[in-house]
């Protein structure tokens, strides 16, 4: 009750303050022609309208709760001198700016827009180009990052930054952004309870989306296309991954999804299409894979060591060169009721479940694991013969690695 009263009071005050808030206009012919000047003379909860034009400013520090709105995308040109906008106050909204030319530094992470130790911010409809870091959220919480377009020109990993970076930030919503040609599209480090939804992250040098030490996050309905690796989830817990598309992450060291040391995740309804490796997992525990489509990947799934209690249920494995590569014992991982396009068994009792178990690991995939050069024999008749004999009587591959109830038809959901 007390909380409600307090919040009511806050809302009341806020609305009162809003009524009092002024609008300050900035343009090249106005009284105020600099954004910094406008911020200096503004009061709390004012709005600053920036008219169309080019503003050569950097180190703009927003230290009070302001709403900054760009009209027809005014250009803020940092002239490669350093950071452009820094928000250090709560309740700041930034809308409709075009920010270019962030300085590159090897000692500091200059960003186009940085939010530092702030709450309740909104960054939307912003276009960032020629950047080092794009939107950098640092020890902030309860913010929203909507509808932004970030287009970098990164070439090498060591001198490029990330599109949207979260560092010790909580409860952030990142939706409908388009990010390309940066190092990591979206990067979360020590950031919990974030929602990442409906974004497109493409052509990035390293990862489309990258989690480090971040827990309880959700990402869904995103598209990750043609990145070094689509998504990397490392050292994190309870990440939920729903209905994402991982596409054409194609190259000698590319993955659709890279999982390393992660626990208790849900991976449901995703599409992995034409990646060199669909999912690469290493040291992951208690993860449920359900209703995912693996289409025409090199390896649908590469399971390296130390994986326990993972469940692979009701997925579709369609026309992958290798379905699964496995280099350890089965442990207590479980494959059940998946559809495998390579399945050659039969279903006499017509219950939709194949009567013969399916062995997803081929002998050749075991050999390739050991001696990568042998992949040059892919699709050779000899390889087909040894694969067949291994399937009949497994010697090298784990003999209990079976799907006991392979589906006869493609699984729909």
């Amino acid at each position, binding site marked *: 009750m007390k909380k409600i009263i307090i919040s009511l009071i806050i809302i009341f005050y806020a609305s009162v303050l809003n009524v009092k808030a002024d609008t300050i206009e900035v343009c090249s012919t106005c009284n105020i022609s600099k954004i910094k000047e406008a911020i200096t003379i503004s009061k709390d909860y004012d709005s600053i309208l920036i008219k169309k034009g080019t503003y050569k400013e950097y180190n703009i520090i927003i230290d009070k709760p302001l709403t900054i709105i760009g009209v027809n995308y005014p250009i803020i040109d940092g002239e490669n001198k350093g950071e452009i906008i820094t928000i250090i106050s709560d309740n700041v909204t930034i809308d409709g700016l075009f920010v270019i030319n962030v300085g590159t530094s090897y000692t500091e992470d200059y960003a186009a827009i940085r939010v530092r130790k702030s709450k309740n911010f909104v960054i939307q409809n912003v276009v960032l180009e020629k950047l080092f870091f794009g939107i950098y959220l640092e020890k902030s919480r309860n913010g929203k990052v909507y509808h932004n377009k970030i287009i970098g020109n990164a070439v090498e990993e060591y001198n490029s930054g990330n599109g949207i970076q979260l560092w010790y930030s909580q409860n952030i919503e990142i939706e409908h952004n388009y990010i390309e040609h940066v190092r990591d599209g979206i990067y979360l480090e020590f950031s919990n309870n974030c929602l990442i939804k409906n974004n497109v992250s493409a052509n990035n040098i390293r990862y489309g989306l990258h989690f480090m030490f971040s827990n309880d996050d959700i990402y869904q309905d995103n598209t990750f296309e043609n990145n070094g690796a689509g998504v990397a989830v490392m050292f994190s817990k309870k990440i939920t991954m729903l209905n994402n598309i991982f596409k054409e992450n*194609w*190259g*000698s*060291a*590319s993955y659709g999804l890279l999982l390393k040391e992660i626990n208790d995740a849900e991976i449901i309804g995703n599409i992995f299409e034409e990646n*060199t490796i669909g999912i690469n997992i290493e040291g992951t525990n208690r993860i449920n894979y359900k209703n995912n489509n693996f289409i025409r990947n*090199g*390896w649908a799934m590469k399971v390296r060591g130390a994986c326990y209690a993972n469940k692979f249920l009701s997925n579709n494995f369609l*026309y992958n*060169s290798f379905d699964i590569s496995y280099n350890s014992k089965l442990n207590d991982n479980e494959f059940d009721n998946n559809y495998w396009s390579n399945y050659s068994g039969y279903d006499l009792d017509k219950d939709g479940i194949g009567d013969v178990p399916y062995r997803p690991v081929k002998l050749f995939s075991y*050999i390739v694991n*050991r*001696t*990568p*050069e*042998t*992949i*040059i*024999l*892919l*699709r*050779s*008749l*000899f*390889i087909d*013969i040894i694969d067949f004999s291994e399937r009949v009587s497994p010697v090298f591959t784990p003999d209990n690695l079976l799907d006991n109830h392979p589906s006869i038809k493609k699984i729909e959901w």
Partner: protein
Amino acid sequence: MLKILKYSFYDLMRSRWSYVYFAFYLILGIVLLFLNTDLSKAVITLMNVIIVLVPLIGTIFGVMYYYNSKEFTELLLAQPLNRSSIFLGQYLGVALSLSMSLILGLGLPFVFYGLFKSNAIWDFSLLLITGTFLTLIFTALAFNIALSNENKIKGFGYAILLWLFLAVIYDGLFLMSLVLFEDYPLDKLSLFGTMLNPIDLSRTLILLKLDISALLGYTGAVFKKFFGTNFGLIVSIIMLSVWVILPVFRMLNKAKKKDF
């Protein structure tokens, strides 16, 4: 030579086996294209068929033709004709009729399917080119075997053994040597190993064109660098041509010296 070529060619064109061979490819092409929606997938399946079946049929057909037309060959030898033109004519007659069955049999369904509008046309042409090369190579090898063996059974035996060696056993030995020497850098060795066997060479050429190269990891990078460039392509074509020319030369040499 051209007359003999023409005669052999028409003789084979009239034979039932050419039709069966042609019909087989025609049906295969139609089934693959019209029951399978994905064109590049169809090209992969075709590749599997081509690198296994084309050499086999080339060898068997070559040996068979030689033994069957032996009496006619002896009749020709009694005429004032150059020996090399007789054998070259016969060889080309067989090889070209087989290649034609292959190209027409696979080409027709693809043309009806609308290949010219599709971007798989290069993959497909490469497929047909390697198929033709394989026919030329294995027919030449078959003629060699048949010339060296009067005994039909022995000849067939060697022919099948040859096919078995190049299509299966070679890869087995190759795989074993790669696994055995896994501690050493192997990319040069694997490149060399592929170049030596026409079937492997064709397979690798097609696979790399189908962009499976990324699967190959580091080795793939080496291969892509080699086969992906014009230089690699030219070297591969030269290598395949050498595989045609050497057996043909040996065949002509053998025929010149042979006492019929």
